[in-house]
């Protein structure tokens, strides 16, 4: 039996795909808000991915991945059902604190839609009124809408171009929800840093508790390298062991966004190299079988 076997895969778009990985022990231990470190092969990077869902009965965890760089593009190619991951460690980070909010907005932007799902479900199971706000660039990138419908009391879909739901960003969705509901206790926002920053800004005036899940660059995920340090208020915290959830109103997002640019050049080199090998593989002529002349 393979360790960390991939038992299901679904492609949501050209770039977004879902992997369901067998790891009964982790499925049992995982909680909303936690993440794993994945290595797809021995020469691979250790990349942090949020646990988008877990199924304790089936013993699987679900990862939703966007092919944006070399490692994730490679995973999109090589991670197929029946295959396995080289490394999978976790669940890492402190689980999200499930508050006793009676009414909550769960905001997911792009890939952040996946990890916000278990949190929204946890709120629902806790008896809260859940408003989902999901943002995508366009209609084609939408995924998990039906999953959210089953657990949300209200669902607002926002697309940048208006091809589905309302036209605008998730902040427009948040403002819409805030206009109709004066009694929101908590907002959870997961997505690109710029989106989380805007979401935190949107709730700042009303003073609504807003939790964000940070995604800085990591190596080990166990508090050893300090690469994932973030400024929260006056303190320096490690997202891997002190987070990844923090108070969105205290996080220094500008610092986070600068730090996320650290390996831009190397990412470009690696991605170009990867695309190059893919092209070569695609255009390679199949070897001609030699006739048996014996």
């Amino acid at each position, binding site marked *: 039996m393979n360790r960390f076997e991939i038992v299901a895969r679904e492609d949501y778009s050209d770039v977004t795909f879902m992997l369901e990985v067998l790891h009964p022990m982790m499925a049992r*231990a995982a909680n909303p808000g936690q993440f794993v470190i994945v290595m797809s092969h021995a020469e691979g990077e250790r990349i942090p991915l949020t646990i988008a869902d877990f199924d304790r009965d089936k013993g699987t965890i679900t990862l939703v991945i966007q092919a944006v760089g*070399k490692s994730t593009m490679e995973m999109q190619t090589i991670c197929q059902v029946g295959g396995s991951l080289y490394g999978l*460690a976790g669940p890492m980070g402190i689980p999200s604190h499930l508050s006793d909010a009676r009414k909550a907005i769960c905001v997911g932007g792009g890939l952040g839609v996946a990890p916000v799902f278990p949190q929204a479900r946890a709120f629902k199971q806790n008896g809260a009124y859940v408003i989902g706000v999901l943002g995508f660039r366009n209609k084609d990138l939408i995924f998990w809408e039906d999953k959210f419908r089953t657990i949300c009391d209200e669902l607002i879909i926002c697309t940048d171009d208006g091809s589905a739901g309302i036209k605008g960003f998730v902040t427009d969705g948040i403002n819409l929800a805030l206009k109709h509901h004066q009694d929101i206790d908590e907002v959870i926002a997961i997505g690109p840093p710029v989106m989380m920053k805007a979401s935190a800004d949107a709730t700042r005036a009303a003073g609504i508790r807003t939790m964000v899940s940070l995604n800085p660059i990591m190596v080990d995920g166990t508090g050893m*390298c*300090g690469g994932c340090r973030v400024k929260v208020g006056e303190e320096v915290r490690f997202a891997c062991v002190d987070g990844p959830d923090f108070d969105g109103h205290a996080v220094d997002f500008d610092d986070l966004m600068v730090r996320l640019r650290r390996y831009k050049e190397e990412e470009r080199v690696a991605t170009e190299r990867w695309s190059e090998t893919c092209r070569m593989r695609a255009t390679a002529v199949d070897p001609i079988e030699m006739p048996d002349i014996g």
Partner: protein
Amino acid sequence: MAKKRTVRSIPQERTPVRELDPLERSANFEEVNCGYTETEAVLESQRCLYCPDPKCIAGCPVSINIPGFIERIGERDFRGAYDIITGTNLLPAVCGRVCPQENQCEGVCVVGENLVPVAIGRMERFVGDLAISNSWVNIPYIDPTRFRIGIVGSGPAGMACAADMAKAGCDVTVYEAFHEAGGVLRYGIPEFRLPNSVVDAEIEKLKMLGVKFECNTLVGRLFTIRQMLTELGFDAVFIGTGAGYPTMLGIPGDSLNGVLSANELLTRCNLMRARDFPNVDTPLPLGKHVVVVGAGNTAMDALRVSKRLGAASVTCLYRRSKAEAPARAEEVHHAEQEGIEFHWLSAPVEILDDGDGSVCAIRCIKMELGEPDASGRRRPMPIGGSEFEIETDQVVFAIGTNANPIIGQTSDLKLNKRGYIDTDADMMTSMAGVFAGGDIVTGAATVIEAMGAGRKAARGMKKFLGIRDVGPISSGPARFGINTREQNYRRVRTM
């Protein structure tokens, strides 16, 4: 018996060891110290006085019978020397390389009162390497017990505890959060000081003792310490998770791009092999002008790795003087040979932004030494108006580490106020059956101290489980191919 040796009769000079040329080696990751040859080791063995009251044994954290193994080297009985060392030290090839011998065995060597002390570390390494190349292994006679032991962390403390418990007949499983075992030996200490092949060989020996390794397992989060004792059915647990959490500089600019911990630099380079980027996926963009803050062994490793990765200039900043530098003397010496620039008595004040979120320079201040502080070292004091700047595009900080928080977060073990695990004299924590040792108990220390702690915890564990160490059954060498000296562990059977 040969005439008694005296300081005057022994070879006066320490046998030199071959080292790679500094210029050549500072561009590659080959091991710097080539180690003794057989002839050199035998020659050096003649410098030992075989003191009746050997101070070196007391100076060794695991009390290796040092004169004993040196005597065997002198008799060219290298296997015998190996058997003596492995009686107390599992990893001679590792410890011969990374122990700070000048503060331990060699520091108290009687020869050292008049001459350069006996090169104990180099001889230990010679024996360890010979064992690896000849595949010597001492698989003792093991009397199996029904006990199962779980070890958290595969670094030196965990490895030492695992070996002792396996020899005591327990079924031992070691859990490691990374994808490869070895802990700091793997991610921290670079190849030119400790080749990966040596770490592999030592781990292989543990596997031969029946120890199982489970990587990709983050104990505390995947399952808790309590679950190990209940659901997973371990009779005792040892925690050796180390002190990995790096201390921040805490000066303006320390979150700029290009500022990173030595742990991150070394992990990327050693464990993730980022020096081969883009053939491996983990990047390590190296600056042209690297500044490393700190002067411990980790700082020396970071300096020398940066040099090998091709930095044009590599500078060390340390707020005290060279005499107070905590690194092994040999490491400082090697770093100097390789062209590392040292700014002693200089402390960083601020890291400057190039306007785009990256480092462009570091502002420092000169220091002078005042009265001794709590650590007994003279306290550095800033000299007013002595500020200066160094142009740099990468600042690495190696100023110490703190306790890893994960076990503390996920268990109710009693911690001290600095976050390290509290233990009793037997290394048992506040939870019965759970032991801890190494950096997670003492704070950052050395490989051999961690191994000593792992062994001490194993003794406590055996006491807790009712496994009794009995003395050698006979003093003869081997019986029926079984090394009798290794029959030390018998469980007291009470049922």
